């Protein structure tokens, strides 16, 4: 079991989660972040700091988001690590509003 990033991160990428990860296990592409399930210790530090609630522990994952488990595993293996906070993507604040946060 691990913790994973889901679709709300897409086009936001606020990266607050990266700053509290004790294991440094976030990976990034141009659109969003992914968690490496091999390195993640499932501590949950990242879950409450996400401004758009994109991060779930597998046990709390809504059924319609289960495909994100495989996506996180595949994408994190292929992408570079992100170790520090970076600027949110342009338009992130509007998207956050659209998502109801």
């Amino acid at each position, binding site marked *: 079991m691990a913790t994973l990033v889901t679709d709300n991160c897409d086009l936001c990428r606020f990266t*607050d989660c990266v*700053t*509290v*990860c*004790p*294991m*440094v296990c976030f990976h990034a592409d141009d659109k969003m972040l992914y968690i490496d399930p091999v390195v993640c*210790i*499932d*501590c*949950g*530090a*990242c879950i*409450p*700091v996400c401004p758009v*609630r994109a991060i779930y*522990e597998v*046990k*709390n994952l809504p059924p319609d988001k289960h495909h994100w488990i495989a996506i996180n595993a595949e994408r994190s293996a292929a992408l570079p690590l992100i170790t*520090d906070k970076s600027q949110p993507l342009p338009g992130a604040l509007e998207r956050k509003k659209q998502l109801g*946060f």
Partner: protein
Amino acid sequence: MLKIAVVGSGPSGFYTAEALLKSSKAEVDMLERLPVPYGLVRYGVAPDHPKLKLPATTYARTAALSGFRFVGGVTVGKDVSVEELRDAYHAVVFCCGAETDRELGIPGENLPGSHAATAFVGWYNGHPDFLQHSFDLTQEQVVIIGQGNVAADVCRILAKPVDDLRQTDIAEHALQALAESRVREIHIIGRRGPAQAKFTDKELRELGEIPQACVSLDPADLVLDPASAKEIEDPRGQTAAWNMALLREFASRPLAQARRRIHFRFLESPVALYGGQNLGGAVLEKNRLEGFPFGQRALGTGVTARLDCGLLFRSVGYKGLEMPGLPFDERRGIIPNREGRVIRDGLPLTGMYCAGWIKRGPSGIIGTNRADAVETANHLLTDMHTNASLPSKAGASVLLPMLASRGLRCTSFEDWLKIDAAEIARGAEAGKPREKFVRIKDMLDIVSHQAAA
């Protein structure tokens, strides 16, 4: 090169060191009271949570960075003063955590059988300071005051079948005592309601998954007042909403025979402990909630009831200890600071910083301290960068001879690696990930024995 002293080697100390070293502008000497590093990762995280100890692997990587030095076995404020550190270093970062716990402040609190939860945690984790403590596990009724993650850890260690702990790094003395445990009923008591319990949902869920133990609670306690109902609908109340769902599921379970039973009780505060030679029980006052969502306080109703118990643990908050030579906020139990810059009378103290629990109080989990430490480290680097006339500082070349002249036997990170390897080898014999040395002398013997060999 900046010479920085970091006081404390727990998560906030290592995250501070990591941020400073990665700037390539600083060397870090990390001072630790014990001969061994990692603070709460070694001595706070429960033995049955091995994954949560893995951040130590990242700390070992930080320790391998050039410019890092570990100085174990030195107590700042006693073996060396804050003033002396200030003279030897460009800056000092205090990362010494919340070393003591808050008391209940009620009559009978010091009866034998009433303990700080942290003493139990230190004891089962083999912390040298808590070796002399003993806990009467022949008692069948146990009360835990507080509903945070430390309370959950204590409850889980008491409730678990001892065989489930044998392959962990729990201290051998604790394993022996727990094997004789006669604990049957564990009451875990919160002063506010179920929506205000501070457990993370993960810790709460685990309490419902313990083999041979069952959970029990009064379904009437799960009827929320309007303000609490608002809290769990709010995005800020997500953890509380998950907790409520778990508690409702617990309440719906059929009554079962079990070796041990965990009772969740809400809206109760102890007002006195009673007993004679030993603790006999607690007088609990029923509370009601008052206030707006996320600002609700527990107010006593005057209605009290007795709950017999022979063992009680308080887990109602933690605070730091005052460091001689530094200002201290007695009420919050922290060093007064602005984003990690230590302040006295509203003004920053040059070269003095803090990070972690001594900076913001005991909140969050291990990773929370990474962001917190980065904030402090960034301010420190900015301050030093804007100060054009930085004098050169002697750092360890003054500190180490000073400590040696005072008769201290300090450990290096290489020494720790020897102790670490010896603990892992000892543990392997018993099928444990490690068997900790619980006496400082035994830790130092490993170092000197290997040096002599």
